[in-house]
């Protein structure tokens, strides 16, 4: 999956599952400040991402390092690449 494809999928799924405006979901947008997600949404987010990208995201450190949509795209791309290598 290319970065662009991952980004597009993230936009679609966050808009759908978290009722966000697609226009607001930019690479720079901060999940917490701009998009208004908080720690209570973190688990829902993990579940949605795991399902969408068919991944396991069970590492607290990883999740905590994600601040923007751009971070999230990079993270998913990296995880996907790791899976292909394995």
């Amino acid at each position, binding site marked *: 999956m290319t970065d662009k494809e991952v980004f597009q999928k993230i936009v679609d799924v966050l808009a*759908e*599952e978290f009722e966000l405006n697609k226009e607001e979901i930019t690479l720079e947008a901060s999940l917490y400040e701009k998009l208004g997600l908080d720690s209570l949404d973190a688990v*829902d987010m*993990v579940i949605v991402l795991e399902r969408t990208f068919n991944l396991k995201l069970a590492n607290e450190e990883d999740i905590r390092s994600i601040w923007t949509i751009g971070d999230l795209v990079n993270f998913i791309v990296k995880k996907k690449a790791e899976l292909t290598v394995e």
Partner: protein
Amino acid sequence: MKADVVIIGSGISGLTAAALLAKHGKEVVLVEKNRNPGGSIRQFTRKNHAFDIGFHYTGCLGEGEILNLLWQHCGVLDKVNIIPASQGGYDHFEDPATGKVIRGYFSYEHLEEELIANFPHEKNGIKTYLKTIRTNCQDVPFYKTDLPLLPFLRGYKDQVNSLSSFLDKTIEDRLLRSVLEAPGFLYGVPTRKASVEVHSLVAHGYYSGAYKVAGGGQSVVNSFVDAIRATGTSLSVNAEVTSIQVKNGAVTGVTLYSGEEITCSQIIYTGHPGQSLALLPPSVFRPAYKSRVRNLQNSLSMFAVFAESEKFVDCTTGALNYYIFPKTGEILPPQSMLAPNQRIMLMTSGAPASSKELHGHGNDVTLLSTGYWKDVEPFLKNDSPRRSPEYTAWKADITDKMVTKAEERWGAISGTLTPLATATPLTFRDKLSAPSGCTYGAMHCLGQYTPDVRTRLSGFYLSGQSTLMTGVVGASVAGLVSAGEILGLEDLWRSIRL
């Protein structure tokens, strides 16, 4: 009517939360849709026998332990008579394949000795297992009560260690493995879906001590109800909440089936989280949360036969519960084609009477076996409060087989058994408002994140077994946490430990 907090459901979570909130100055209304308070820990009676639905024994009631602290703070401790299992108390685990009996002592030291004596070649594995259980509970404030609550409760927890994989690496003997898996019965998760972490939380309590309460769960319920009423808190039974009102993103009250409205700014919902959605306007939660909560996988159900025993079943000699494992296969498989009497089955004695001695209330026992929703699926076509004759016949047949097996194995202890009532997954579903008859709420298992007590709806909190942990201890702790979210978690925690 007006209140600060409305608590929906009067099981041990709701009772605990109500007592804590009232003690700390909140005006509380506790509403229960059934005729009697107590949820799964209340008793019901048949022919002068009082049977416990869910409260057979518990851990964490020793001095300084979490349940003891909570009950003391709630003004309940000195109203109930706690009876610790005798020195050398144990669960009796029987392997039908070999006839071998292993004693599951409620003590790490005794248990280790017993297991090593029976499985000397597995000494290292036994030590590793027990050490892992202990270590996993070191940072848990409900066991180490000098720890703060917030670091444990907040944030995202990963739960990735599979109990099966851990046991595959650690233990070889099939019977030993079954004995170590057996605490899974106390949280209703098939072994293959269980995590080492959750297993540890439950097993640690059980390996640290077991307690019964004189008069059973009903005496706990009664003591809580008295304590709550003494604070001026109102408890309404036959009071089903049909909707929750929300304004500007915060709860404002509830409406009861009778049409009565209660205005409030906070609500604790103790039922299954999936069922809370039907009470709320659909727009309050996002699709991600709603589908997660709606699709929670639930814990196992049970078959329970409540019987009068010919003999008085005495617990003072050591065995608190008699378990028999299935002849072949796993003790807690994800599904089972075996008849309930061929699955893991246990016999437990009735609640002790109100005296210092640990002995039965009289001559009654409960037989328990695991239940699966698939077991009752054939009867769902004509699902109505009035059960079909086919269902009644099927239930009678299961009752008969479970009784026959218990008499065969444990007749020397119990004498003949006369069944007075039987519960199936359908019974649990309907009597306890438990989807798919789950006896331990949503599963705390691999790959599932159970919902937080806090929700995104301001003033709306979840509680009960599906949130933090299962069983009497888990549900009580959930009650503590839901009250703590309203009162201030660390402040409440500090005052409980004083």
